[in-house]
């Protein structure tokens, strides 16, 4: 099917995008990569009266800023995958991006669009919560920075207020020694994930767990932060098959994924245990003793 009629306005700066959004009101939608919005429009699940194309509002490449990696909103997933700066400062983001859709989707889709869309199965939202990242937004009353943990609220719903646009995403640079992993379960390449797990681990000088971050995605209304549950098991202990499996069991008990076409809720709950265990072991294997902590 084809999208229904709409008016089109191109924004060449973020302030202009905000102004256009205010003028457009509730019937206006922001168009970035369009890899989620346009399919929804083709299916007539979305019928905005005005599209505000922000592709001309771009402001540069991912860059480091005082210990943080700042990723401009229009950064394409393919750039996240390839960028030397991203791979060096935050390799888990490059890895997560590689799981998104197909190459054509990754050429167009943007990090700003991904977080604003807030699909519970999105790879980048899950990663950003694990990373304790933040979302920079611009609105009628100026700029604010929203922690990822507060940004994603429920299905396709964020903390964005009317008239606000995402201008960038920022995450702490992953210090050398910090282990990371992003894994997901899919039935076919390009499918929406059935389960996602993102893990970050710091080891102390003795090789014991100094700090763990753990988030699972695609199994609830938004990314689920299970860092406290993981820390309760792993803190100051070793990360091995037994302890990782115990975190997996607790993670499994903490989520209640709905039935989906490609996997029942019960199956996905079981798979949470498996993917959490694997992600923790993979992250621990990458971590260096006396690392980032």
């Amino acid at each position: 099917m084809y999208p229904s009629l709409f008016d089109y306005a191109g924004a060449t700066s973020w302030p202009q995008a905000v102004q256009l959004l205010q003028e457009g009101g509730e019937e206006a939608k922001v168009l970035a990569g369009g890899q989620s919005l346009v399919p929804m429009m083709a299916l007539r699940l979305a019928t905005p009266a005005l599209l505000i194309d922000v592709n001309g509002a771009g402001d540069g490449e991912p860059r480091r800023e005082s210990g943080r990696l700042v990723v401009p909103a229009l950064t394409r997933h393919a750039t996240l995958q390839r960028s030397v700066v991203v791979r060096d400062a935050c390799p888990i983001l490059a890895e997560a991006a590689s799981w998104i859709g197909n190459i054509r989707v990754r050429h167009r889709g943007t990090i700003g669009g991904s977080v604003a869309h807030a699909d519970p199965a999105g790879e980048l939202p899950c990663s950003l919560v694990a990373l304790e990242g933040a979302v920079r937004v611009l609105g009628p009353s100026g700029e604010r920075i929203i922690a990822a943990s507060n940004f994603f609220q429920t299905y396709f719903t964020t903390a964005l207020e009317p008239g606000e646009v995402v201008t960038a995403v920022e995450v702490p640079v992953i210090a050398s020694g910090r282990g990371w992993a992003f894994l997901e379960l899919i039935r076919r390449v390009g499918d929406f994930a059935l389960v996602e797990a993102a893990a970050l681990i710091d080891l102390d000088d003795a090789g014991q767990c100094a700090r763990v971050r753990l988030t699972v995605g695609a199994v609830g209304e938004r990314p689920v932060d299970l860092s406290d549950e993981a820390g309760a098991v792993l803190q100051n202990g070793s990360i091995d098959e037994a302890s990782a499996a115990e975190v997996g069991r607790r993670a499994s008990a903490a989520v209640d994924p709905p039935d989906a076409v490609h996997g029942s809720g019960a199956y996905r709950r079981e798979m949470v245990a498996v993917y959490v265990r694997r992600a923790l072991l993979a992250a621990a294997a990458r971590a260096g003793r006396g690392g980032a902590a």
Partner: protein
Amino acid sequence: MTARSLVTLELNGERREAWVFPHQTLMEVLRDDLGFTEVKYGCGEGLCGTCAVLLNGESVNACLLFAIQADGCAVTTVKGLSEGADLHPLQRSFLDHGASQCGFCTPGMVVTAYEFVREHPRAGREEIRAALAGNLCRCTGYVKILDAVEAYVRSAEADGSP
């Protein structure tokens, strides 16, 4: 009623213009207004890959890009890879390997494989398989498609001109 805009494309190397409504996708304009029917309409959701074209050299879903967004861009369809009747070696390899059954997925397969081999000139079969995973062939003729792309990689390597 929303007004039309004039969009200029460098389409397979030639300058082309079209008056488009904002809601018209690049796929629709290429097929219906400009007659480039080698760009196929498959799923309309970005999943199947048969409408793949190169936008400034990068593959995109023509069904998910509004034509107005492509204004001023270079667009290459599968036909743009050949020079008239002289097929591109990758196209020739598809032909030689019988890598096309009903042919509906073929334009997207060729465009996607062309871009991938350009970026990964020494790709092995498993890498090719992964690269084409986002293109669906409902005849399930994948084996011969992989054969064709793999043979093209080998021959381009042998020629030293990927």
